[in-house]
């Protein structure tokens, strides 16, 4: 009858919103600790307000540059950089997706035996833990400047992302359909092709579209460390304070990302 007693206790008292964290000591420890951290963090950040104030004028110029972006005076560089970014994105997405499918199969516990499972999971863990730009720095040091390093970086990053999510989807698939195909006497490859693949295909296409989108966005920064793409042009534009050219490049990136998002929305709606 505890519930009734609780109700009796509450009768006659005003209602108060229940707190998000129920345990009072935990709530206050988190609150006080967080406040202490914030104070400490603010104290260690040095902000040169005079410099910030000076910069506001340049900030205004930059925002104004968006109203008159300059596509023409550096059009050759912008075009080359954009084409290189797109080429890197396409090639890296194709190779990355092609490699991540077998790894995803290996990383799904209901398809692969334990040793293969562990090997594939560790590949995924390594690929996910390393930041794209750090991988790019190392690959540029090894393979030299140019789009090859960027292509390899993006492929490597795609493997970690796509394999992990695809493996989770394979693990949560419907066993019954796969069993039915197996019962008809299918070989292993046929079993994958007719029992597993149709179930995960919509998810694979959706994830691939999303990853192409991410790869394009990432390819825009790989140029900063010399791995090809539009990033180098953008960096130069910022260094020379050519805000109108930088604004043009940023608008192009936003436009392409929006177009990709729209396209992937249509494709995902058709597949599902």
């Amino acid at each position: 009858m505890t519930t009734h007693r609780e109700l009796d206790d509450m009768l006659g008292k005003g209602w108060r919103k229940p707190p998000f964290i129920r345990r009072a000591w935990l709530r206050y420890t988190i609150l006080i600790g967080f406040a202490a951290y914030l104070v400490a963090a603010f104290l260690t950040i040095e902000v040169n307000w005079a410099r910030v104030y000076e910069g506001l004028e340049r900030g205004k110029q930059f925002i104004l540059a968006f109203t008159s972006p300059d596509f023409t005076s550096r059009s050759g560089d912008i075009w080359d950089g954009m084409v290189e970014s797109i080429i890197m994105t396409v090639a890296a997405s194709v190779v990355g997706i092609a490699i991540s499918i077998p790894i995803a199969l290996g990383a799904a516990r209901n398809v692969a035996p334990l040793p293969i499972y562990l090997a594939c999971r560790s590949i995924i863990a390594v690929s996910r833990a390393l930041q794209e730009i750090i991988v790019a720095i190392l690959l540029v040091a090894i393979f030299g400047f140019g789009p090859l390093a960027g292509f390899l970086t993006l492929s490597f990053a795609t493997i970690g992302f796509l394999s992990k999510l695809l493996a989770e989807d394979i693990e949560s698939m419907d066993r019954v359909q796969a069993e039915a195909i197996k019962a008809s006497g299918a070989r292993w490859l046929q079993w994958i092709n007719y029992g597993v693949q149709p179930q995960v295909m919509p998810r694979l296409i959706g994830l691939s579209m999303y990853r192409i989108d991410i790869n394009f966005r990432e390819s825009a920064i790989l140029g900063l460390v010399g791995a090809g793409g539009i990033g180098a042009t953008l960096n130069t534009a910022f260094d020379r304070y050519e805000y109108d050219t930088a604004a043009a490049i940023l608008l192009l990136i936003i436009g392409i990302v929006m177009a990709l998002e729209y396209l992937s929305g249509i494709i995902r709606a058709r597949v599902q």
Partner: protein
Amino acid sequence: MPVREAEGQKLWQRRTGRESLAHWVMWLTGVAVFAYCWQQISEATTWFFVWDAPRIAGDIWTRATPPKWEYITQLGKPIWDTINIATLGTIIALILAIPVAFLAARNTTPSVLFVRPIALLIIVSTRSINSLIWALLLIAIIGPGVFAGVVAIAIRSIGFCAKLLYEAIEEIDETQVEAITATGASRWQVMAYGIVPQILPAFAGIAVFRWDINIRESTVLGLVGAGGIGLQLSASLNVLAWPQVALILIVILAAVVISEWVSAKVRGAII
């Protein structure tokens, strides 16, 4: 079901003739595009360096091991800065993302025709530009340092947080909102008692998730001069001090793994 007649027997096929033709054309175009892209990359590559790559990689490895462990005394302040950039950036982003999310969600926006597209534009434009590019831009405007990193992370995260948050707002249970409205609550009271309690778990999840991503991103912001451990990384790379680079990479990896563990724990506790 597509069936083909062959030698008096009926054979099952997966696709009709037209479908398989369409598939074939699609694959052909795909392969052609990929071949073209690969050719372009290959032309821009000095293949001599690539064939030489294993030797270079081995060379770098021998230079980088063992890591220079005593250098870690100089990494305390940079890693503290990195964590601050991520945390403060996430907090500022969340504060800015909440109004944007409420303006972007179909069921709470004041005007679907005028306000919602503006909110969506903010979300898309902040989301599609990487934090490194924001950092480049902010360094040109407000000068190098931790502050530029905080602002870059904050701007980059607005779109991400607002997008996930407005999707959560659109998925709320309308009956609860209606019940609060029926008691005669004002617009703000409906928000505080009908909508906010429903999205609070999602909000906490998004905050921790984004914080985890921001830790990763803030480790490399220093490469363009926006503070944090990336500054040490780029300084060590510039003087080819590979043992220091190795140690910094280990520290970054540890920070990433710990933040992912924390975020997974907190999300597990909330959901």
